[in-house]
């Protein structure tokens, strides 16, 4: 497969740019090369493996001057990244599902230590039962760990978001680890045309920076010391403050990116929301299904719009308030369960609306769990539901499980 790609890479496009057929994973690897990272520490896990495999090849071929640390587990992978980042290196790692769970302890340490590590999380369903397929159960388990979490919907966004992630993470008023999540297999293994930019051009956009807390024998300091009850609250609050400040930085970086690379990214994608009476909310690769279903509904005269979350943390509060204040109802399709609760993104959105005293009725739905095949007709069914709820002004009392055999029979 790799030879085939080498041949296709010969195809060249506009000056300083090339259009390559890349999978989401390979797009991530190309972005990491363009970012000129110093250290990569990772452990293979499906569906993330092709990322570090490709990075290894870049290093072996002399195309990227970086240290690849082959660790014995994901716990060690992120620990090695923390060490390298604490020494001032630009670092990258990638993982999925069980790997992310094994990393979990260290995930919180990375944010508490305020190290600008960038990680690709290729979303995969969590065991048990064992699944290698894609859903966001793993990503949702890290949403309250102090990381900035972006979600890419396609291979181009994977490439672009990873470049942005370094600029966001290393911003002096942010200094937080940043994850770029995307769908296992649907995005990670599907080949799409991706426009990549000259590495030198990318490197001018994200010049290497230094942060104030770097290990240096001439200026010794202690990191991650014990914080007793009179210190922990304040130190951990700094993470909350940085996340709050990161929101404007993310917006600025997206604007700069759009100008520099001639793109059009927003924190939330809004599709036909200008005159929408109902809103269909998704993230990741579901966005394509959602837009197609919206097109079909619009053709029938249903005024439905779509919202896609490119940013999961910090939650884009102002955009949520702005977009959902004037609709009759909304439905959130989560590609992850909320165990004993509504869907994870639905819960976050519902909290924003409650805080801002907005009473738009909402429906929580799940689909694509364990990469259950999703069809556009399922999203059309979701639109039918949100229209019904909006017109009747009455919320559903149950979470809707689209595509689940037997769902609804016992209600």
């Amino acid at each position, binding site marked *: 497969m790799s030879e085939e790609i080498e041949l296709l890479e010969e195809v060249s496009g506009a000056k300083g740019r090339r259009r390559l057929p890349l999978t989401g994973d390979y797009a991530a690897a190309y972005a990491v090369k363009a970012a000129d990272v110093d250290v990569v520490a990772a452990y293979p896990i499906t569906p993330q493996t092709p990322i570090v495999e490709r990075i290894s090849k870049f290093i072996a071929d002399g195309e990227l001057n970086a240290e690849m640390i082959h660790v014995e587990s994901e716990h060690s992978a992120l620990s090695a990244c923390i060490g390298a980042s604490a020494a001032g290196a630009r670092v990258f790692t990638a993982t999925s599902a069980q790997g992310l769970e094994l990393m979990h302890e260290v995930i919180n340490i990375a944010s508490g230590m305020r190290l600008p590590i960038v990680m690709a999380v290729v979303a995969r369903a969590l065991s048990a039962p064992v699944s290698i397929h894609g859903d966001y159960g793993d990503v949702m388990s890290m949403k309250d760990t102090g990381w900035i979490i972006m979600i890419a919907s396609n291979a181009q966004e994977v490439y672009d978001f990873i470049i942005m992630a370094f600029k966001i993470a290393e911003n002096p008023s942010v200094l937080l680890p940043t994850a770029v999540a995307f769908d296992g297999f649907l995005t990670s293994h599907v080949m799409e045309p991706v426009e990549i930019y000259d590495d030198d051009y990318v490197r001018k956009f994200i010049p290497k920076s230094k*942060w104030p807390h770097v290990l240096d024998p001439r200026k010794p*300091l202690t990191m991650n010391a014990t914080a007793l009850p009179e210190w922990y609250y304040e130190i951990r609050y700094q993470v909350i403050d940085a996340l709050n400040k990161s929101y404007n930085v993310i917006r600025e970086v997206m604007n700069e990116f759009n100008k520099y690379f001639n793109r059009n990214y927003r924190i939330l994608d809004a599709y036909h929301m200008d005159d929408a009476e109902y809103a269909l909310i998704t993230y990741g690769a579901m966005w394509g299904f959602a837009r197609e279903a919206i097109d079909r509904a619009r053709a029938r005269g249903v005024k439905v719009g779509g919202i896609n979350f490119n940013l999961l943390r910090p939650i884009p509060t102002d955009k949520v308030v702005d977009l959902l204040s004037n609709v009759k109802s909304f439905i959130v399709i989560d590609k992850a369960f909320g165990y004993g609760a509504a869907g994870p993104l639905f819960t976050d959105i519902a909290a924003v609306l409650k805080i801002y005293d907005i009473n738009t009725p909402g429906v929580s739905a799940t689909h694509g769990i364990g990469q259950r095949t999703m069809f556009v007709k399922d999203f059309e069914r979701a639109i039918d539901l949100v229209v019904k709820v909006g017109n009747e002004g009455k919320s559903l009392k149950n979470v809707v499980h689209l595509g689940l055999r037997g769902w609804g029979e016992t209600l």
Partner: protein
Amino acid sequence: MHVSNEGELAKWYEIPIAGVVNEPGNTAKIIVSGWRTFKPVIDQDKCTRCGICWMYCPEGAIKYVNKPYSTKKGINYGFTYEIDYDHCKGCRICVVECPVKAINAVREHE
């Protein structure tokens, strides 16, 4: 220690990023006397000045003091060992290690 002149603890924005400790050696400023249940007390008359407690103390809380001492039996020593009670955590390793049983563990609060 991020303590202002008035003795107030630093506010969240006054603490260095991630709570890094950028003042090496500041552990000496932390008083741990409240951690003890038992405090070690040296019987200066029994003590042979062997220095084993000084070597074993994990906190460096046994002080070598240039202070002459004459025991009740009339032995003259040119120095003494004393305990730094600000930094002694009461682990009692010195009590166990003393070869002449010259260190007693005394309950802090009866």
